[in-house]
């Protein structure tokens, strides 16, 4: 269960990035992306902006819930009033080696493409998952608003504050 959290500015430029693992179920809060997949996270999140552009007009909600998926990565989005996007990539892969055993048929291949072999039980639209991520987003939003109230903060400026990062990490530990 690894997470990649990114704040994306109005120019689709990254303002803040953070990787962490789950702290629930005995997790130690360390991200465990596979090495070959880690560099793809940015690309995946970036490509999800296409979906954000579409679904942001659907309702007045800031929390857009689960919006996209790429292989075994699930993207959740929270959009602020200033069109800054909080994107959370969730990889439920617990880093177990893929099951290369008997089911090598086409059906197995396809389900693995759906990312359901590694965590077949994971459901991104489950209320518990949505709620936890929503709480995380809301807490980050709270910190975010305080950050951008800084008179020296300009639009689309990168956030480098270690305090901000610490608060995001705390929110992650608390909710995810």
């Amino acid at each position: 269960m690894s997470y990649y959290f990114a704040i994306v500015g109005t120019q689709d430029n990254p303002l803040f990035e953070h990787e962490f693992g789950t702290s629930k179920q005995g997790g130690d809060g360390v991200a465990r992306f596979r090495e070959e997949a880690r560099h793809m996270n940015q690309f995946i999140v970036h490509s999800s902006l296409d979906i954000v552009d579409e679904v942001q007009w659907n309702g007045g909600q800031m929390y857009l819930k689960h919006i996209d998926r790429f292989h075994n990565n699930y993207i959740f989005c929270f959009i602020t009033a200033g069109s800054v996007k909080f994107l959370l990539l969730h990889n439920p892969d617990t880093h177990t080696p893929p099951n290369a055993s008997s089911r090598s048929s086409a059906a197995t291949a396809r389900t693995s493409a759906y990312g359901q072999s590694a965590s077949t039980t994971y459901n991104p639209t489950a209320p518990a998952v949505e709620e936890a991520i929503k709480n995380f987003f809301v807490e980050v939003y709270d910190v975010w608003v305080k950050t951008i109230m800084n008179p020296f903060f300009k639009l689309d400026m990168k956030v480098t504050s270690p305090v901000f990062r610490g608060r995001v990490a705390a929110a992650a530990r608390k909710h995810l």
Partner: protein
Amino acid sequence: MGDSFSPFSAARMLIQVLPAGPIKANVFNDTVKILREAGPIQLRDINPPPDPDRNLFNPSKFPRGRISFSFTSSSKSLSHSVLYPFETFREPFLVLGLADASEFSLDGDHDVDAREATRDPGKRSFSELNSHLSQLRDNYPNGLVHRIILVVSRQDQHISDLPDGILTLRPRESINSLLCGLAAQLLPEMTGLVKSFQALQNYPSPLALNRDGQGDENGAGGSRRGSLRPFPSPSSSSQDIKASHRMSMPVMSSSAVSPLSGSRPGTPGTEGRSTPATTFDDIPGAVPPHVASRISTPPAGLWGDALRELSESATRARASGDYLWHAKSLENLAVCLLLLAWNGISFRIPDICYPSSTRPLAAMKGLQSPPSGGPGDAPAATPEEVIEAIRGLYEIIPELIHMIRDAYNRTWDIPGESLPQFAYSEINIRFARLLVGLSDDGHLDGGMRQLMPTDSKLVLPRFSRGRAFARQTSDMLQAAIPPPSDFSDISIMDTVTILGAVVSSYSALGMARKSMLVLQDFLDTLIPGLVQARKVGAAEAGMHPAAGIANLQSQAVPSQDPGQLVESILKFFESIDLLPVRSDGQEEQEEQEVDATSSTAISTNKDTKINLLRKCIKVCEALPDFNGVLRCTAAVFTLAGPGSAPNIASPDVFILIPPEEQIMLAANFYRTSDLIDNLGLPKSGGDYWDPFLVRGLEVQLPPPGREMISRRMNDFDNTAIEQIGAKAGPFLHNAFNKKTKGPTNQAVFVAGESCSFSVTLQNLFDFEIHIDSLELVTSMDDFVVRREGIRLGPHRVQMFAISGTPKTAGPVHVTECKVIPKGCMPKTFDIIPGPWSPPDLIKISDGLADAKAKDEPKLFILEGTVLEPQPLLDLTKLSLSQKAIEVLEGERKSFKVTLTNHMTSSRANFVRITPQDNIRVYLQSALKERDIRPSFRYEMEYQVYQDPNVRCIKGLDQQNIGSNEPAEFEFEILGKPGLSHASIQFDYCYLPDSTLKESFFTRMLEIPFTVAVKPSIRLLGSHLAVLPQDPMGVLAPRDRNCWMIMDFRNLSHTPLKLSLQQNSESASEEGISSVSLKDGQEELIASGRTSTVSSAIPKVFIERPHTAIPSLDPTKEQQFVLRTSGGAPIDERVERECFWFSSSLINSLSASWTDPDSGKSGTVNLRDISLAPDEVDVLRLDDVSIFWTSELKGSLGVPSTAKFKLLNRTQETIRVELQLYRTIAGFVDRIAGSHVESQLMSAIGPNTEVEEEFDCMFEIKGHHVFVPTVVEREARDGAMDRPLRTWQGEPKFVTVK
């Protein structure tokens, strides 16, 4: 477009086109292109089959129907054809071989007897064609009709006696009639096919076929499908088929078949279905919904039956839990419904299309489309109804698709029942493309467009994107992406095509970022495949697979390599129809597609783009496509660059790719470019990456003497010259002394003379840039400025000299540079000297950018003029040795200058001479100060303008100097202390019409020389005093003269003779007979000695000594000057008086010296004389003077008359009263001793003398003193008023004894 990704591929008839016999590639490609361009054919154009037994598809029943063909020239793949007839478009019904008629007649032309010859070889060829035809039949057993088309390129070629199965295609022959003929032959065959299917009782599921290739790995599946034999062709016996088919399928009840095939033979759509589950699919050629759709347009009732059959079979499949066939039925049903709706035929949406059969009836009806008009011939629906129906249909389409996908997904869990991955992916892509195509702003692919009704005026409504639209479509495409290859059995070719289709679908959906993410996968998969294919190809060609690109020269002609992989790329590009399909140059399309993706998506990540392009380079290398390598590499550099123009002084910009990679890419780039040149391949090249290559343009100054200097008409203001007098030469203020400044964007060139520019180029990258050619784009055609072979060093701003020669006169401007960088397309660059960076665009939404707030970089435009051929003067003779001259102070010397015009083609018709020296320069700079006392200013201006040290005395008026002709000038120099060097400047040019324009250009020749001035006699000091009492009368009269004392010192080494002259004219102007100085008074002064000269000089009358001190520079003249110095008015008054009297004195005196030994002579500078205020009083003559004209006779008691003369020197009339004061020395009695006699006089006119008399009587002895006094009175109504001014005359003493 044999495209399994098109949503309507199931509704199109696939035709395989192959070469049969010898045919040139271009003829083949052209013919395929012609075939593809042919539109769908109308059923009414097809002749009905004569045989009633084979009349199942009778086109005459549906004259409005259409058949749309799709042609493929690619070879079939086994993994795909096993899906036939589950998906009928996997196999062609019609196989066409193309043969070139000219290839066959070629032999005949060589024979003498043409007619005989053409016939004989023709017969031989036709028999060859027969063998080709049978070969086609062997290779494509599933094809129903096999034909060979003989392409006749020459109209007059006579071909006869063709065997069966061979058709001809002549130029300008209607391709549609050919297709109609083929269709007429095909339809009866399809009847046979349908009947053969009807003979089957059930049908295999695709996976059974899939097993054939894979072997049986699944025990359970294997037991059920015990057959490994390939799928039988329709001609196989039904018994065999039965045996091989899975038995899990619900066996079709015979009662279901018979009514369809028997009782309604005329409904082709329902016809073919022998098993409920296979519905359409099994009617391979027979054309389930698709063919039905186009065939059965008119009889609406029959359509109703067809739909009913479809829904029945789907219902049956669902009931029996056969999800695969259920899904397939629904899929085809959806297509069928759409086609019906578009063609305006009444239909009723079957219940099976709704998500649940328990759906309320009301809701169903609400969604229902036009009330079905019964099975009969219902009239065609009105457009409104049709639109309503289409809207209703569109509403359920997303739900329907969801249902179908759900059904397909359920087959996962059934072992042996699921689709192969590629088929599953294709299904998903088909749905996604369908949704995109139907939605707003989506675009229809070619297949869909062909199937849309073209004849009706109906504007089809668009499917509106709902909230879930993006998610749903994206999910479908996501599902279509094949899993990593180690999980799946999917081939590289299939993966590549599927990924390509996903990419293009994302693009069509407007999700550029998504499409790029997938595109990376696509290229990753493609590259190893290409490399492998090339190795195989090289091995086939007998070369070592490890041979590099360069060694593949012989067969390296790109895009001609007929490998399987390249064919699959072709297929991929057909599948994405972002771009029109071309039969060659597929890789270009790929890049264009990449370009399109990257350019439309403004917000996509640069890193992603670069990553993609790196992969594109590898693809191009693998193909190999050298031009593609160039283009992609250039595109990488474009993206990696900053996209802005940095400050030239500090071009520190961030390049996205590291230096090592830049160097590597650049080396590869230039190597490839060289390779293309060496091979002689056509070169297109890339687009140069830095739009700010040219950062500056300057005109280099020509060598000294050749530059043209801008002059203005104002520099020659004649009025100013007249005011000053021509003494100093024609020019007042030295316009010609202005030095030209550095180069500007105003340039002057001379026709016929070479000029040079320096172009500043920038290179922000860490590699050397090779530039083949650099050329300035001038507005003159014959003004070519070009340089070839430039190397621009890494990471620097470099200037390059470039030269050219203008041929004709006229205005010219340079706006751009045309540069051909090596390996790139020629490009013109604007000249952008200043820093510039693109403004931040505000993203509004959906990638829309705020386009209006764009500021453009400031462009540099060089404006220039090309002048007529100009002369070039050079100094050929100077009468000074060593360019130096020695003079004594005050001495004048002359020298000669000879110039020659060296130009043969032009003459000078304008020559101006400006002498200059260091004193003058100093004074001119001093004159620029504002706070100079006016008297000093006047003195300096006098020296500058009136008394120059160097002046031209001969040749001043010479204006014309012909070509190769000399011209002589003479100059005079005056020695002054401090003069050390001087120069003479010639400004000359050729003016085409000999008249000065507002501004023009001249050339300049400057002749400097040094001057040594030796001292001679100098005035050390001077003093003025009142003349002493002169009882002897030797001296001049005291009242009109004063005494001047001057000290002169001889500073030279030799004795000099000084002579002092008085300018008598200035004195006589005063109207006073001056007492002349001893004119020509001479005195020899020994070396180093000082001599004092004293002399009486006449006093001076100045009527208005308080007027402002003038300025000799007309530009500095001021009209109203009250006070120029900051002091009190009295000071100003004193200064002005001193100035006027001093200048009057200086003008009246002159001194000169001669050297008795050498005979040299010169003048002594007296301008240093300046008067103190008390000296001014000495020098001054009053306005009114009173003189005694007769003496009084002092005799007691004798009356005497005193006569006076009154002189008014002013220009005004003065009213005066003459008074005579008379006192007696020693008397204190006021009455007797002292009194005033006064006499009122009327007025004295200007410059007039008046005589007056007083009568006196001496009554007392003693010394009488008479003082005549003139009192000016203010005139007021006849009465004398108070006195204004008084002047006293000389007192007289009379002694009365």
